[in-house]
């Protein structure tokens, strides 16, 4: 049996860190808060790994199926018979995998930040926020109840908001955190409505019951959810689409992706943790959590997931080719890779071999967490060294940052899908699943894969090669890589990025809990790998040495390049909609109404109140004999009123 106590400790330890450092950090642990947070997280990570070991190898599998275990649960709020908000833990392959990913990456970021954030004024605040985030994220993946997941979903949003706006003196950071919060909140509105629809029809908020009821065609709840329709889609499909909207907002899917690139205003380790490895995949996780319902009962919604994912993947990859801020390149690359995971889910079926896409998606989530966190931390080292985010300020850094250089290269190879690095395996699985299921999505995925290799190596060559090392002005005299604490996470993550692909994921994480052995098709792999190599080759030609080739090529693309550089004007579009349309058509009239009608009413109330209370002040005269008189009059009035009139 799983031991409840330590399962609970996994999220509670980071929470303890948040409370401790948040309340007392600035006073008592000014310098030691980093160590405290890291130690707590180390304990949490070890427990998570132990849980994974226990689950996958000892208790999880019964009769060849991985079970969904609820080790503890308690009712927090009972609405009616059957409908309650529970707080509990749901342990199944995906949540256990997420526990490991989150605690591991978070631990790496904790360690790395010891060096990166050193000397920061609000050092302990930073660590307390990290603790809050880790707690919320762990709570999110362990949720056994759809409302519980919503609560933690918002908590994650809050901690992301706090961390993006960590440098709150910078106006751009403040704008970015507001943007992230508002966009994701908007998406969460859809999520909430989706929850309400699903829970209304299924009559429960509990995940297991909900999935069971909405996937068995005989259940009355399922019949009702299918029977009622709105605008040509059944209520069930609407519910799933709206839930997906929430997921799309958090996972920065088109067209709700606009917050993620701006979110790079936060400290770089935070970007690695929240905006690359963990929080942004929450949307993928949500779809995976409800996957049986998607696959069995709402295939239209699942098709939508596939197309949104595929289009986002391609679209973000194109933009990533044109950006010059290294963190933004990585941000768009993240969006693109999450698109991969989404469409992998979209092309999956439920059960057995058909569920390959599901396994592949989770596999990619896992490997992506490794190499993307590594890329961000590597970028952090570069930024730490150069004090700039712009590619043009970099070049030839391989001499100064040798470890960063090698690990970054590993990550680039992994993300480009070059064997035998981790990304190769997960990406091949995704593409294979897509080719079996949906040719359009498959080709989009393939093109994206080539583009990915190109822009990643564009980044790599621009940072580490391009200019001759001597031309670079050293930013500071100090040692390049910020010491052991900043190197160790890079190395550990690089090991993950290099070898995580050999984990037989099909044994552990499948759509229906039954293990299967994904068949490898080496002939199939030739094309994607070749495309990747071509992408790398082009990047090598263009960016290995400083030359004017890139400018020429970008000029030849003309308007398209400009559009991609400006992220296809999505921000401007939103600004137009919000500023011009919403503002003028809704905001202004509402403001007028507020000023003239509401304020008028309020003022009138105020004035009347004023007058009335001056009048009745006479009653409160301070003379006790008058009080007695009023008392008596009131008594008699009441007696008369209730005896004669109001029965």
């Amino acid at each position, binding site marked *: 049996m799983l031991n409840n106590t330590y399962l609970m400790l996994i999220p509670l330890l980071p929470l303890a860190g948040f409370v401790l450092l948040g309340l007392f950090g600035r006073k008592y642990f000014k310098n030691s808060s980093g160590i405290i947070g890291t130690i707590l997280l180390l304990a949490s990570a070890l427990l998570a790994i132990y849980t994974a070991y226990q689950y996958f190898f000892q208790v999880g599998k019964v009769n060849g199926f991985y079970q969904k275990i609820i080790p503890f649960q308690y009712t*927090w*709020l009972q609405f009616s018979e059957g409908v309650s908000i529970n707080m509990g833990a749901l342990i199944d392959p995906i949540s256990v995998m997420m526990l490991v990913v989150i605690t591991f990456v978070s631990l790496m970021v904790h360690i790395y930040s010891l060096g990166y954030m050193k000397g920061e004024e609000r050092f302990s605040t930073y660590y307390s926020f990290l603790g809050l985030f880790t707690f919320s994220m762990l709570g999110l993946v362990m949720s056994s109840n759809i409302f519980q997941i919503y609560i933690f979903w918002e908590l994650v949003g809050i901690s992301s908001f706090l961390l993006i706006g960590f440098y709150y003196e910078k106006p751009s950071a403040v704008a970015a955190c507001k943007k992230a919060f508002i966009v994701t909140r908007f998406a969460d509105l859809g999520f909430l409505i989706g929850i309400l629809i699903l829970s209304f029809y299924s009559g429960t908020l509990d995940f297991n019951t909900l999935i069971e009821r909405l996937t068995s065609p005989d259940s009355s709840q399922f019949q009702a959810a299918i029977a009622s329709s709105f605008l040509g889609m059944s209520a069930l499909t609407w519910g799933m689409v709206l839930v997906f909207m929430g997921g799309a907002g958090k996972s920065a899917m088109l067209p709700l992706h606009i917050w993620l690139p701006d979110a790079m205003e936060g400290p770089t380790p935070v970007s690695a943790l929240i905006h690359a490895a963990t929080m942004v995949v929450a949307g993928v996780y949500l779809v995976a959590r409800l996957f049986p319902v998607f696959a069995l009962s709402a295939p239209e919604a699942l098709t939508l997931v596939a197309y949104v994912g595929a289009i986002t993947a391609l679209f973000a990859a194109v933009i990533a080719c044109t950006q010059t801020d290294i963190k933004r390149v990585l941000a768009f690359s993240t969006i693109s890779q999450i698109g991969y995971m989404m469409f992998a889910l979209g092309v999956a079926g439920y059960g057995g071999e058909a569920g390959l896409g599901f396994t592949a998606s989770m596999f990619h989530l896992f490997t992506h967490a490794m190499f993307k966190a590594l890329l961000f931390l590597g970028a952090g080292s570069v930024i730490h060294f150069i004090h700039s985010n712009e590619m043009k300020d970099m070049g030839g850094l391989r001499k100064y940052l040798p470890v960063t250089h090698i690990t970054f290269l590993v990550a680039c190879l992994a993300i480009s899908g070059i064997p035998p690095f981790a990304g190769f395996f997960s990406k091949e699985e995704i593409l294979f699943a897509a080719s079996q299921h949906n040719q359009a999505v498959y080709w989009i995925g393939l093109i994206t894969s080539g583009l990915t290799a190109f822009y990643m190596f564009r980044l790599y060559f621009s940072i580490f090669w391009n200019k001759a090392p001597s031309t670079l002005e050293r930013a500071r005299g100090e040692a390049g890589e910020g010491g052991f604490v900043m190197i160790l996470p890079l190395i550990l993550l690089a090991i993950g990025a290099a070898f995580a692909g050999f984990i037989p994921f099909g044994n552990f994480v499948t759509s229906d809990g039954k293990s299967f052995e994904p068949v490898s098709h080496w002939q199939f792999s030739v094309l994607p790998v070749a495309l990747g190599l071509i992408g790398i080759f082009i990047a090598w030609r263009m960016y290995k040495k400083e030359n004017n080739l890139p400018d020429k090529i970008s000029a030849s693309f003309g308007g398209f390049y400009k559009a991609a550089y400006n992220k296809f004007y999505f921000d401007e579009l939103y600004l137009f909609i919000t500023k011009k349309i919403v503002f003028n058509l809704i905001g202004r009239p509402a403001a007028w109404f507020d000023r003239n009608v509401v304020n008028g009413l309020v003022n009138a109330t105020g004035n009347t*109140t004023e007058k*009335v*209370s001056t009048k009745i002040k006479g*009653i*409160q005269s*301070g003379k*006790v004999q008058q*009080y*007695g008189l*009023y*008392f*008596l009059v*009131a*008594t008699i009035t*009441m*007696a008369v009123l*209730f*005896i004669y009139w*109001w*029965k």
Partner: protein
Amino acid sequence: MNEFISLMKPELIVTFIIFVLLFTKLGKGVKNSSLLNLIQVLLLLNFAAGFFFNKEGSLFGGMYHTDTLIAVQKNILSLGVYLISLLFADWFKKTEHLSEFFILLLSALLGMFFLISSGNFLMFFLSLELATIPVAAMANFDLHKKISSEGAMKFILSSAFSSGILLFGISLIYGATGTISFTELPALITASPFQILAFVFLFTAFAFKMSIVPFHLWTADVYEGSPMATTSFLSVISKGAVAFIFITVLYKVFQPMQEVWYNMIMLLSIITMITGNLFALRQQNIKRFLAFSSIAQVGFILVGISGNSPEGLTSVVYFVLIYVFSNLAAFGVAATISSNTGKENISDYKGFYQTNPFLTWIMALALFSLAGIPPTAGFFGKLFLLKSGAANANYLFITIAALNLIVSLYYYLRVIRSMFMDKNEEPIGKIKVQLSTKFGMYLCAAGIVFAGIFSWVYDYIQSLM
């Protein structure tokens, strides 16, 4: 004998403490600070003892009745008294007659215990008087202030008047039915005009004690004149006790005239909320402000009472518990400021956050809870009151209540705003908060936060029905 001790345990303990305090007067006199420590320990023990060996049963031929719910109600009052002993430490240490103050206070508490447990109108009347008269003396405790004596005078005169009408009502009840026992009465109540008249007279006594409008006129003068410890006792403990017995009388004794009293409660609740809010809007003095806002809170308690269901009872008990934490915390901060600087006006609080962040946070938390802003406990308290009131499907009534809730937000937030945001060249200086006061404030803060989040508090009270 054994049963006597176990059933009357709360009353016996309070009586014992009163005697201990009397004995301290025999010797040369103890220093205030050590006496206060003794009192605090005794009251803590009294509170702790309330958790154990609570049984159900009757004594003296049904005159006295108790059960586990009543024990919880008594314990809430004990908790309130304990908090008072902590929060007003500054003032207690300065006052000349500390032990007398607590003897009076505990006598009133004893009265309230008997009041909640009473099973007969005679017992009810006697204990109500016991719960009132010592408070009049407590109101007079700022011995050098004329305003304090004036308040006490008004209080004793008004309550004598109210008692007169109450007695009249009781005798009418007796005349109509031939009994004054709570258990025998329900069968004899028929809602005839005569009985309604008697009931109105009874009702006014409750209305007076809970300062329901229009029987509230004494409130402002007495609250303003009394020392803050007395004011808080009156506005929290005394109201809570009367609310508890009020529910018993309405739900048990006068259940057959349910329709009549529902209308009365609704009418007076609306008037009370509106008047309380209107007056609270204008107050500058923090004591008067809290006094009127507590009138508005009583209006809300009436909303819960109007539910006429076990849920109504649960929600009121729960609300009173939260109200003890929130209102005492607010009074505690106001009293700490007042006894250190003598300032009692809201305008003096401007910029208070700069110098006293701790007190400001406690005050903010308390006012948030009083205003009913989630996730403080006050929100849940109000939520359950409204939910209970909504059971009668009288949605106009609930809407008015909800609107009043919004109005009250304004004036509570006004205080918070002036503490946090308003600029002040010369804010009140740094105040050194007594250790026990600080402890009391932490207790209140914990109560405000946790009584809401942990659903088992509510569930526990509900399970006692």
